[in-house]
C-alpha cells in the first residue's frame, strides 16, 4: 500500500511510454488500450487516457483513423507515427539503462566486497 502510493508519480510518468508500446503492436482503440493495461499496475481510465492521447497526437507521436465498428458509432483507431516509433526506441533504451542502474546500484558493494574490513 505504501509502495503503491510512493510510485504514483512514476507510474503516471511511465504511462506515455506504455501507451507507445501498446499502440506499437497493433492498431488499437481506447478500450483496447484500457483493457491491456487493466490487469497491470498501470490500470488507468478514460479521463486520463483521452487527454494523453490527444497530447501525443499533438506531438505527432501517434495518429488515428476513423473505422466503422460492428456495434455503435465509428471508433478512432490509433497507430504510431515514424516519430512515435523513434521515441519508443529511445525511451526503451533509456528504460533499459534505468533498470541496469537500479540493479547495479545495490550490488556495487558486493562486487567490490574483497576489501578487508577495518
Amino acid at each position, binding site marked *: 500500500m505504501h509502495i503503491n502510493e510512493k510510485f504514483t508519480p512514476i507510474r503516471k510518468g511511465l504511462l506515455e511510454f506504455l501507451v507507445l508500446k501498446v499502440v506499437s503492436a497493433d492498431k488499437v482503440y481506447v478500450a483496447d488500450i484500457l483493457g491491456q493495461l487493466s490487469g497491470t499496475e498501470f490500470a488507468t481510465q478514460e479521463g*486520463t487516457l483521452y*487527454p494523453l492521447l490527444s*497530447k501525443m497526437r499533438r506531438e505527432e507521436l501517434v495518429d488515428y483513423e476513423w473505422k466503422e465498428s460492428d456495434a*455503435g*458509432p465509428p471508433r478512432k483507431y490509433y497507430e504510431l507515427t515514424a516519430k512515435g516509433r523513434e521515441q519508443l526506441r*529511445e525511451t526503451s533504451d533509456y528504460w533499459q539503462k534505468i533498470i541496469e542502474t537500479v540493479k547495479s546500484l545495490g550490488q556495487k558493494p558486493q562486487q567490490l566486497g574483497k576489501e578487508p574490513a577495518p
Partner: protein
Amino acid sequence: MNKVIIINLNGNAYQLEENGYEALRAYLDSAGRRLEANPDKDEIIADIEQAIADKFRAMLGPNKTVVAAKEVEAVIAEMGPVQDASDTTQAEGRAAPAPGVPEAPQPAAAPRRLFKIRDGAMIGGVCNGLAAYLDIDVTIVRVLFAILAFTYGAGVLLYILMMLILPSANTTADKTAAYGAPPTAQEFIRRAKAGYYEGMKTFGDRQARREWKRKFKQEMRGWKRDFQREVHQGAHQFHHFWSQNWHPPAGAWIAISVLTFLCVIITLLGIASVISLLATGAVFGIHLVGIPTWAGVIILIIGFQMLTWPVRAMRHGFYYGGGPVYAGPFVHLWNSLFWLALVVLALWYANHHSTEVHEALRQIRPELHRAFDSVRQWLDKQ
C-alpha cells in the same frame, strides 16, 4: 419516482434521472475547466462524451430506456477524473519547462495595442486590428463599417484615415500586442469555440431562444422601416431641390451620357463580381476569408449600390431643370463627387499597397470575359 432528463451526447439522445444528469453535468463541466488551456479541449470532450455514450448504450435495452442516477455515477467513477496530460511535466520527450513559466495563455494580462493586421484582411486590415483590439468578431466590425459608409461615407473616410495612421502589425511581437495573447491558430480556434459555447449556454431552453429570435426580428423590422423612411425622405428632398433650383448646363447631355456610362460599367462590374463569387467562391480571385458566400453576395450588392448611388443621383440632377439659387443641390453634388473621389482614392490606395487587390484589378478583364461567356452559354441553352 424520478424526473427524467434527455441529454445529447455526441449526437445521441439518452434519458437520465435528474440526479444523474446533475452529476454528469458537473463531471463534464469540471473536465472542461481542467482542459481550459488545452488546444484540443473540444476534441477530448467529444471523445469523453462518446465513451460515456458507449457505456450508457451497453446498459440500455428494449426494456430499460432510462439511465439511473447510480449508474451514471458508476460510469463517471469508471471514466476517472479528467487530467490534462499537457500539464504533467514528467512526460518523456519534452524538456521540462522552467519552473514559474506558465504554459497556459493568460487572457487580458498583456496590454493590447491598436494595429492594422494584414493576415486575413479584406482591404487594409483595419477592421481586423480593431476586432483584435476590442476582442470581438471581425465580421461585426466590418458590418459596422459598412453601415457607417452609408452615412455620407463616414465609414470609408474613417477607414482610409485609420489605414493611413495605424501602424502595421508585421512582427510576431506586434501581433501578440494586437491580440494581447499568443497569435497561434489553435488559440484563435479555441477562443472562437469558447465564445460559441458561451453563446449557446444562454439559449439553454427553447423559450429563451424563441424570445430572442422574436426580439431580433422585431428589431430588424424596425431598422428596416426607419431606413426605408430615411431613404424615401432623402430622395424626395433631393429631387425637390434639384428640380426647383438647377438648370442643366448646355453640355448636360454629355454629362448625362458619361454618368450613365459610368453607372452601367459599375453595375456590370457588380454583376460580374457576384457571378464570379458564386462560380468560383472568390471575387476576381480574392477569397473572402471567414465570410459565407451568401453574406459575400449581400456585401457585394450593397457595395455596388453605394458605388452607383452618387452617379445615379448626379444623373438625376441633370435631368431635372432648375437654377443654382439654393446651395442645397451643390452640397449634394459636392457630396456625391466627394464620395466618388473617396472610392477612387480607396481603390488607388488598395491597388498600390495590396498586391492582392492589384492582381484582382488586373484579372478583372479575363474574369469579365468569362462571366459574359457563361451568361452567353446560358442564353444559348434557352
